[in-house]
């Protein structure tokens, strides 16, 4: 795999997993309404 492929693969996975992780962290630790 090329370096560009690795960058796009790791970058994309980091973005989607990071965003989802941050969202669920905020929900689970947020104020209970």
């Amino acid at each position, binding site marked *: *795999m090329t370096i560009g*492929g690795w960058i796009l693969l790791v970058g*994309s*996975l980091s973005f989607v997993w990071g965003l989802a992780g941050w*969202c669920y962290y905020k929900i689970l630790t947020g104020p209970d309404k």
Partner: protein
Amino acid sequence: MSGQKEQWGSRLGVILAVSGSAVGLGNFLRFPGQAAANGGGAFLIPYFCALLLLGIPICWAEWAMGRYGGRKGFHSAPSILGVIGKGAFWRYSGVIGILIPLAVSFYYTFIASWCLGYFYAYATGGMTIDPSTAIATQAAASTSFYEGFTGFSENGLFFGSLGIPTIAFWAVAFGMNIFLIMRGISKGIEKFVSFAMPIMAVCALIVLIRVLTLGTPDPALPDQNVMGGLAYMWNPDYAALKNPQTWLAAAGQIFFSISVGFGIILNYASYVKQDDDVALSGLTAAATNEVFEVGFGGLITLTASFVFLGLSGTIAAVSAGTFGLGFQTLPVVFAQMGVFGPVVGAVWFFMLFLAAVTSSISMYQPAVAFMQEALGVDRKRGTWFVVAICMVGSFMVIYFTEGAVFWSTIDFWIGTFLILVLAMLEIIAFSWIFGIDRGWAEIHHGADIKIPTIFRFIMKWVAPAYLLIVLVAFAVTNLPASIAQIGQQPMAQLALGLLAAVLLVLMWIVRLGEKRWRDLGMDLDGKEHVSSGGAS
């Protein structure tokens, strides 16, 4: 009022329900095919641009409009858009938000039944592809099973003794949907997705681990390995970025994937409690969908195909389209996995079945809510009205299977073109008629996050302009050929006739609803501004 007092039982429940609606076959089959055909890893650049500039902003608008409509006692796209757009034009335009999910359900539940049938075949040893024969022979066996199951070779195939298994699987899938819809928002949909979504994630993880640990299964073919598969999917072809078709495909995938422009989020969000957050919830639902699409779909499907079928076989699989990849190529791939093959096949198609059902229930629910509030009937009776329409539509889809022309026509005009039209109407109604100031305040009412201010500009200017470009480009590149096809294919004419008939019925029901809402003194034209604290 319509008598609808339903609410989601929990915040996580509505997030999983919206995520479940979004996660479907497209995440695992359509996305990798689109990426591979449009620049590989480079496709992710226009894909994430479309996500940030179109998908998530319109998603937030839909969540906010839905909750606002729910506050006024409305739960369907016609009534909610009537309130947001302040008038009859928007109310009648909102019928599209009922037509889209309803018409897509005609064929989507049929496809869900294929997943169930394939799962049953793997679980009971009925999928007989002999891996000791040549790949071409295995592919022929897989295609034969597929055509026998889907009836694509001729019309009316299922209305004889040969079609009994397929009809039975469809009846199970359809019955399961109706059972869950009958039980209601919290006891039916929410309860089901609360189990289904985690199970889907576990199934996807099992298949992902198996695929990433395949290594180089055939030492005689050292190039066919996991790294080669990942490279095929992810190595970028930056020249594709100069092709407008790549950007159009990326925007189309985002719309298809995260369920914006369907009218579903409007309905689901209308059952959110008045002071509950929609900003973080909407973002979380979109992010969950992206994990399934990029995190699982982007690693599993084409990698597995490449490892066993090589470069030429995978290119052929991608060119065979979503269903060719999922229902003809992957069974051949699973056949190469030895004793693990039937297990992985069963897990994979069970996951696809759950993904399809969490999506299909969200297609019936908006129409049921619409019947309830427009006709003043209870959920049970509203469901039976929808069942009556769906029985006609679904049986036509199941009867007219030859070449898949009938349901492909519905998929193009409803599941592709009208989604863009509804999204355009929604973002204009929200940002320009309702007003971005009120809209921005509405999104942030009860919000657990502060959305960056740049998105206010994006929602007012960038998203409508971007969407207009996509809509015009789509119309120029696709409509002439599709219109010409209508004149040549009687099945396409029949499909459009069915859609026109359903549209007229829905318009008539809006008419009945208008009279009912006025009689009840409801603010159907959005004349009174309702803030979180009540009317002002």
